[in-house]
């Protein structure tokens, strides 16, 4: 006896519609696969940089669009892991710079609201997010970046490439960061 499901090809039709545009083995599909596999590590790092998961996800996806462009143009990507972290890092930095400008506007607005006694939820949300990173915020950005990347298992050379400093400086920032960090305990 056949089960009810066999009569409903609707789910199949819906699925194959999406499936139709997929070309197995294409660059796009390989990137989707790479995205799925590397997402946990990259998303963790990006979230530390960008603050919110939503923004981190967006930056992560843009990173892969960049990778697509690069490969599509026919340019070689020699060290994939370092490349991904570097591009993600730079995107996040750009994002923060832009957001810094937006934030200063927001703080003015927030100041106005506070004067009017209307601050409330917006402010709470902001401080919540700050709290999450409170411990890590003891570190200055360079130290934080180096430590986080090291925690992701990157080599000093890769870290140097991502952050844009020398390998020697990586060990300096790492030891300084660790020291500061430990002192705070």
């Amino acid at each position, binding site marked *: 006896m056949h089960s009810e499901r066999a009569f409903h090809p609707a789910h199949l039709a819906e699925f194959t519609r999406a499936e139709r545009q997929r070309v197995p083995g294409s660059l796009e599909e390989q990137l989707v696969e790479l995205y799925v596999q590397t997402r946990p590590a990259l998303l963790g790092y990006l979230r530390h940089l960008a603050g919110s998961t939503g923004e981190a996800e967006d930056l992560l996806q843009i990173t892969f669009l960049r990778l697509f*462009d690069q490969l599509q143009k026919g340019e070689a990507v020699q060290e994939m892991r370092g490349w991904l972290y570097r591009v993600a890092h730079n995107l996040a930095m750009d994002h923060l710079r832009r957001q810094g400008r937006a934030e200063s506007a927001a703080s003015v607005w927030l100041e106005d609201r506070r004067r009017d006694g209307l601050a409330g939820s917006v402010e709470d949300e902001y401080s919540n997010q700050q709290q999450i990173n409170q411990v890590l915020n003891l570190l200055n950005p360079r130290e934080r970046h180096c430590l986080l990347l090291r925690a992701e298992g990157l080599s000093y050379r890769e870290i140097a490439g991502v952050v844009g400093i020398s390998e020697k400086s990586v060990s300096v920032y*790492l030891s300084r960061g660790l020291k500061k960090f430990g002192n705070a305990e």
Partner: protein
Amino acid sequence: MKWNQPTGAGGFRHPDDEQLVSFFDGELDPAMRVEVSAHVTSCWQCRARLKEMETKIQAFLEARRKSLPSPEVLAEPPVEQFRERLLRHSAEQRSQMPLLLRAWGSVRRAWQPSATWIAQHQRPALAVVVIVVVLVATFTDLFNNTLAAETVLLRARDYEIAHQPRSGEVAISAVHLERIDRRTQAKSDLGTFEVAHDSATAAFLLDAQGSMPQVVSGPQAETRPALLRLAATQAIAAPVLEYLAERRWTPEVSVPAFRRLLESRGSEQSSARRDGDSIEVRYEFSSGHRSTITEARLRVDAAGYAARQLSILTADAAGQWEYRLTRQEQPPQLRTQQWATLFAAPGLPGARVHASTSALNLPPARITPLSYAQVPASEREVAVAGALHQADACLGEEIHIFPMSDGSLLVQGLMDRREQRDNTRRRLAAVGFPLSVEIYLPSEVKRGQRLYDSPDGPTIPLEAATATTVATLADFSSEQMPLHEKLTAYFSSRSTSEDDASKKIAAFSNDVVSISRQTLLHAWALQRLDRAFNPTRVRSLPAASLQELERLRADHRRWIGILSRQEAELLAPFLDPAQPPPAAGPNPSDSASLVRLAEQQGMLIRALFTVSSAAPDADASLHRLMTTLRQMER
């Protein structure tokens, strides 16, 4: 800080924090590493520092862990959203790219091996992206008349790589061979080769004037017979043939074939010159070359660098000759199973080209399903249909047999129950030839499995079938059921209590609906069989396969008959005796009308045995139903 200054406990200065952390991370250079290691072994202070560092690292990791995204966020990547974004992005990018670059980009991407960084990073998770190296040629010198011969050959090769046969197709060209007396310009035809390039393997076929096609794959294969067939009718000087055979040269107009010709020409001289809308490159042979060849020439289109003509010039005591091969492209053909068999038939030379595609640097093309219209049915398909039939997988399941572009068969589809899938897999494993089987459970499909459309085109709509299944047992015993009065009257006289009667009514109704559904399933399976093995497709099947198909069809027809009879018997007591008995109508001749009848009986059953807002006239409906069933009985 210098290491050789004696100080402190170990006789050396303590490493500083940077050195210690680098040591910890295994990032010190080997010499330093040895020293620090020795120092740490002997120095309590530094061992304590290392320990402290470890504690700090752990504290940092703990803080980091707390601030990582939640496991749910990490475990559920928005794959579909990202895929859509990437595809949109990709479409935009592609539309902006220059046409030529686009073609090259895609070809190179498939073509280049992906080794560099995978070797550097052993993390298998990352080992999927292909390294791309594209040499973008500039076409600035398109209008120059003097070109380096090598440059022309490189571009011609690029053209070839960019114009490989499309997936699922076979590229055909006719290569005409003529011999020209260079003094008198008198031409004589030596014959024509048909060259077929495969899209799925690196193999190509040579067919000299309708004789047995020969698989050749680059330099590995024996090409001499093909040449000798031509030589038998028209004279090609023995030293020339000797050299060509030795070079494993194949008579086709392509850059690899041209290069093979040049392999030991014993000269460095080459030139290229533009001649109207084509460019000709000339590679000289050393004077007095043992082959008597003096020069090889390749003529390519000036606009696109497609190789058109290949010439071998010889001079011996008997005269000066030019053997000229001219290529004429033919429309590509679909890579039917006949083609696939030819390209990969065991026993033919070059059959193992799958394993050694390196000769021509061709990428193995993507294997895609073909539609039923593209390929005739094979014996194997029939065998698979038989196996599915045995497992009842032909009934109501979303299972299709896909003939693939590489000549293989794929059985793919959805099934609801694991046991049925196991059973089906067992049956399919017994067919005795290799077969890809991809049967998914719906839950697996959601995790991103690939499913193809039916090779038959769109799935047959099953609205009517769906309709018969919506009834539940609760409906069957409902008092609003059109047949309720008759059923109650009938079963009350045969029951001990009212409760017993209503149970009997429910069971009876359930039987009727189940049978009706089974009837429809068999009709549907029959129709699918007819579509998959339509007269055009089965034309070249052997008698045994045709018999097997007929057996499968007969089995479904037999079941439709049995089930219809059963149903008619069940319903007979409720017919209105006042009406004339239902006459058997004309017998359905084809599966389409059988499906129509089956749908009709399904709808009538549904109307009679479920609660419907517009209650039909029970007697009339029942009468119509019986007529339908009688038609299906045979």
